[in-house]
């Protein structure tokens, strides 16, 4: 067994911890940092409930060793709302009933955030494609697509207003 020092920035805060080499990123986030918004679903790289952003790209945090994230910047669902205001995606999931049990939602929102950062006005097909690494067993996906469309429209409108 080997112990290592890992340092990473999570939701803007820098953390340094002593960890075992086999610790997975999702366990580091949930157990060492006590950020339990990131869920463990299938544990087999399928469902995407554990999706977080690593240097701006979505990854399944159950399939990344925490050591590989050394020096990187991580964003989890806890970092999405800013100054107490829900992100348009969170608002969209609320308004459009994009969740029932809510288990997949943190991962869905992180994947949707990544999608919208690359493609601010996606078509329905592009949304479905962009979220195809995240499974939901409740909604049948239609309401999730509507939630992402809501967010895309709101974010575009906000950007126009800023400009």
């Amino acid at each position, binding site marked *: 067994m080997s112990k290592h020092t890992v340092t990473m920035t999570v939701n803007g805060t820098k953390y340094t911890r002593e960890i075992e080499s086999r610790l997975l990123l999702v366990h580091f986030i949930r157990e060492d940092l006590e950020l339990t918004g990131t869920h463990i679903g299938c544990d087999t790289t399928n469902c995407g409930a554990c999706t977080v952003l690593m240097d701006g790209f979505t990854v399944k945090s159950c399939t990344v*060793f925490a050591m590989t994230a050394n020096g990187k910047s991580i964003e989890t669902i806890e970092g999405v709302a800013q100054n107490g205001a829900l992100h348009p995606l969170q608002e969209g999931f609320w308004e459009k009933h994009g969740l029932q049990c809510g288990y997949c939602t943190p991962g869905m929102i992180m*994947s949707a955030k990544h999608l919208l950062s690359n493609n601010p006005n996606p078509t329905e097909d592009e949304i479905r494609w962009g979220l195809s690494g995240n499974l939901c067993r409740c909604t049948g996906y239609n309401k999730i697509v509507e939630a992402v469309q809501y967010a895309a429209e709101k974010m575009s409108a906000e950007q126009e207003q800023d400009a």
Partner: protein
Amino acid sequence: MITGQFTYFAPTTIEEAIQLLDEHGFEAKILAGGQSLIPAMRFRLSQPGVIIDINGIDGLSGIREEDGNLVIGALTRESMLEGSHLVQSRYPLLADAATVIADPVVRNMATVGGNIAHADPANDHPAVMLAYNAEVTAVGPNGARTIAIDDFFVDFFENAMEDNEILTEIRIPTPASNSGGAYIKLERKVGDYAISAVAVQLTMNGDTCIAARIALTNVNPVPMRAENAERALVGMTVTDDVIETVGEEAGAECDPSPDLRGSIDYKRDITRVLTKRAINLAIERAH
């Protein structure tokens, strides 16, 4: 599920990584994207004593054209292929594959080199690279050597590299004019392995096929070329009858295993159908 215990190294140069491999030999595994290795370790199908994480080595990632080849660094993420204008505009067979490997989140970590080095007959890049007649570069203590892709997949999950070698890049010859390619995969759902998939790369002269390579995914214990199918295509004026024969040859020469994805007969027949579709699409793209 957590993995077994291991000693972890994160070298920052290739030389350092090779030295570690040389020292630890069979006990050590290279960690690239980890999207196959980490699940295998969690299921305890693989219990390496040493992990050499190469994610911190600069210069192993990137896509460029050089000396008549498309050169792909081994650590290039699958999602970079999707985002590469070069790949999308000039290498349609590779572009097709890049959108059907695993799922969009996995593709942000998964690497092209890992997909090949893992030598899993269910992975998508082996067939793609066989169809392209690619080469890989393996670097070891005695320097770099080139391995033709036809010689690379030697057995079930076994490649032609030594224990102390690292795959550093893949080179795909830039296709001649009037060439086209296609990868068609049938999967139960996004993220699943192929029921069957077919990679075709061919060159046309009018209606005559003057060169073709066809390779198959997940219907054989080792990634394979469908050589009987190729022979039935090359030199022929391509008609529907010819394409039907090529499809039948591919279905007959593979050796699929029955599993949850289907019976042997079903997989052979799907391979026949996908071969026909891939040839038709490749010809369309060649013109």
